[in-house]
């Protein structure tokens, strides 16, 4: 088991190294200095307390969407709909933040619970369709993503139009997840209470998956749905439950993004935290602790790219390109694994001689 863990870690790290190498080649080909590029990219994410805070704030929703995708993966489900679930969570959070005039201590729990419920509902339906009608969850969650996109697209300007046509009104200070203590501690960064929510979620999901009957059954369904059914697990109910929990995590991600990281809700974009969540989960081999690590790594790339763009001529899209390339290398990890196996075999051979 220990060996297996190490191999997964090695494969993940190799995907990262290969992704960074591909990024370096791209920078060099387009006439930039990759060493300077990476120096400013990582400096931009880690240089001082404010930037570190921004990196953690960027990582917060990624931890939650990463957990969402990883959790569903463990039950053998591919939740490609984290973006839509986060959008619905964000929409409900924004709606409550702009309409309820309650004190902070009261409104924040309400917002978080409601956002989680909205996300759960948005994933519950694909889960139900999968369990009842065997509708593939990849297709149904993609459809749900675009339904969420258009619902948000028309709801925000109709009810909460801000200073721009494409934006909601600003979230009042009393309903924001940002708190003065954290903001001051990290000299004015975007860091917010969402970070604590996401770290708590890592612990809870880790315990559920590894230490509870529910988690055991969910994983059993993921390994072999027919064997699980034969052993007496109600497979359909567990598929629906797994999707709903994954959706709740993505809904929370939406709340931390739209009423924590940003101060208003933009329309016309599916939040990138959805697809990035898949990258996070893949790189982490679906382990909750790994999700935290890889989300923070992607957070560095995402928050450092602006600084890099200001100091060099490298376009900020390099961050997304590197993340995307890492997923591709993670998807083709068979190649890396084969290479490691041959290496191990060769070394074993030599030692014997």
């Amino acid at each position, binding site marked *: 088991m220990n060996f297996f863990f190490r191999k997964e870690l090695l494969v993940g790290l190799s995907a990262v190294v290969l992704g960074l190498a591909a990024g370096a080649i791209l920078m060099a080909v387009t006439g930039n200095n990759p060493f300077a590029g990476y120096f400013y990219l990582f400096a931009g994410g880690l240089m001082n307390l404010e930037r570190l805070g921004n990196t953690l704030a960027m990582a917060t929703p990624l931890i939650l969407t990463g957990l969402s995708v990883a959790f569903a993966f463990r039950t053998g489900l591919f939740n490609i709909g984290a973006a839509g679930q986060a959008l619905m969570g964000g929409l409900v959070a924004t709606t409550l933040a702009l309409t309820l005039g309650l004190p902070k201590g009261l409104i924040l729990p309400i917002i978080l619970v409601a956002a989680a419920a909205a996300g759960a509902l948005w994933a519950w339906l694909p889960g139900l369709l999968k369990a009842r009608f065997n509708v593939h969850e990849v297709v149904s969650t993609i459809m749900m993503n675009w339904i969420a996109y258009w619902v948000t697209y*028309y709801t925000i300007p109709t009810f909460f139009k801000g200073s721009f046509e494409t934006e909601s009104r600003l979230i009042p200070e009393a309903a924001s997840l940002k708190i003065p203590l954290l903001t001051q501690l990290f000299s004015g960064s975007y860091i917010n209470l969402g970070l604590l929510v996401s770290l708590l979620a890592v612990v809870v999901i880790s315990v559920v998956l590894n230490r509870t009957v529910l988690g055991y059954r969910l994983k059993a369904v993921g390994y072999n749905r027919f064997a699980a059914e034969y052993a007496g697990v109600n497979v359909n109910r567990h598929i629906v439950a797994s999707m709903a929990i994954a959706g709740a995590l993505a809904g929370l991600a939406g709340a931390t993004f739209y009423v924590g990281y940003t101060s208003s809700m933009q329309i016309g974009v599916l939040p990138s935290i959805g697809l990035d969540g898949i990258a996070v989960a893949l790189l982490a081999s679906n382990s909750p602790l790994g999700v935290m690590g890889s989300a923070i790594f992607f957070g560095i790339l995402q928050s450092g790219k602006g600084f890099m763009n200001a100091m060099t001529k490298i376009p900020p899209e390099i961050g*997304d390109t590197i993340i995307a390339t890492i997923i591709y290398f993670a998807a*083709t990890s068979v190649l890396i694994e084969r290479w490691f196996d041959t290496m191990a075999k060769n070394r074993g051979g030599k030692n014997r001689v």
Partner: protein
Amino acid sequence: MFDIILHIFPYAIAFTIPLLVTSLGGLYSERSGVVNIGLEGLMIVGSFASAAATVALYPVLGPNAVWFGLLAAVVAGALFSLLHAFASINLNANQVISGTAINMIAGALTVYIARTLTGSGNIQIKQGVPRVDIPFLSDIPVVGPLLFQKTYATTWIVLGLWLLLWFVLYKTPFGLRLRACGEHPHAADSAGVNVQAIRYAAVVISGALAGLGGATILLTYSGEFNGQVAGLGFLALAALIFGQWKPLGILGACFFFGFAATLANASQAEPALKVIPDVILKVFPYAVTLIALVLLSKKSQAPRAAGEPFEAGKR
């Protein structure tokens, strides 16, 4: 009512055509057994390639540059789809993950290159595909103005492709083998069909067609590359499913979705359409696809082996 139809008809066609050609790409890939949710990314690649080629060649070729733009998109889409083919055919990788990676790489990489080329992430073209009146046919009353006046050349190219692709899929040995690979690759294998080669060909065709789809958007109604195609690749996937993996079904589904989307856009200008809230018209194609999936779940026509890696030794 007829006025409204007359007014939105050209827009609906313009919206439908790129959707149709991309969906046909998805058809070829999935009928061969490879799920391709990277269509969106391949469209973006096509859109970028056509913009770059058209802008680069405009000073030399003038209005004729668009044809090379279309060609560049086809080539770029085909080349880019090799990434997906390699991962899903050679390495037996999870096809959905590989497709997701394609979508992400395409979206980020093209904007990166566009920014390097132009400074902003956008590329604007000077002139798109010319609009032509079809001789004789355009003079027919009612039907003429509706179908044959001021049509984009790409519309006829794509409709011609639809016919060709239908013929290849159902009436040629290649098409038969392709369908066999999607239904039962091992049977095809034992009959002497090279499953991997057929699947490679199918994925590359899907990349070329999706690239053409992206280019069609750019060279007809959008006119500017900005790193996205507004989810049309996913809508094409929905049309593929709603059309039950059949060319005729796809044609119907694409026109259906095209009109629904155009109605939603036009309802700002047409008072008669104001009664239906925009959001319902926009959500319509996706909701309908979900319902269709449920209704057809018992007798789905999905290729049986779609999404499953082919391992020759597995029985």
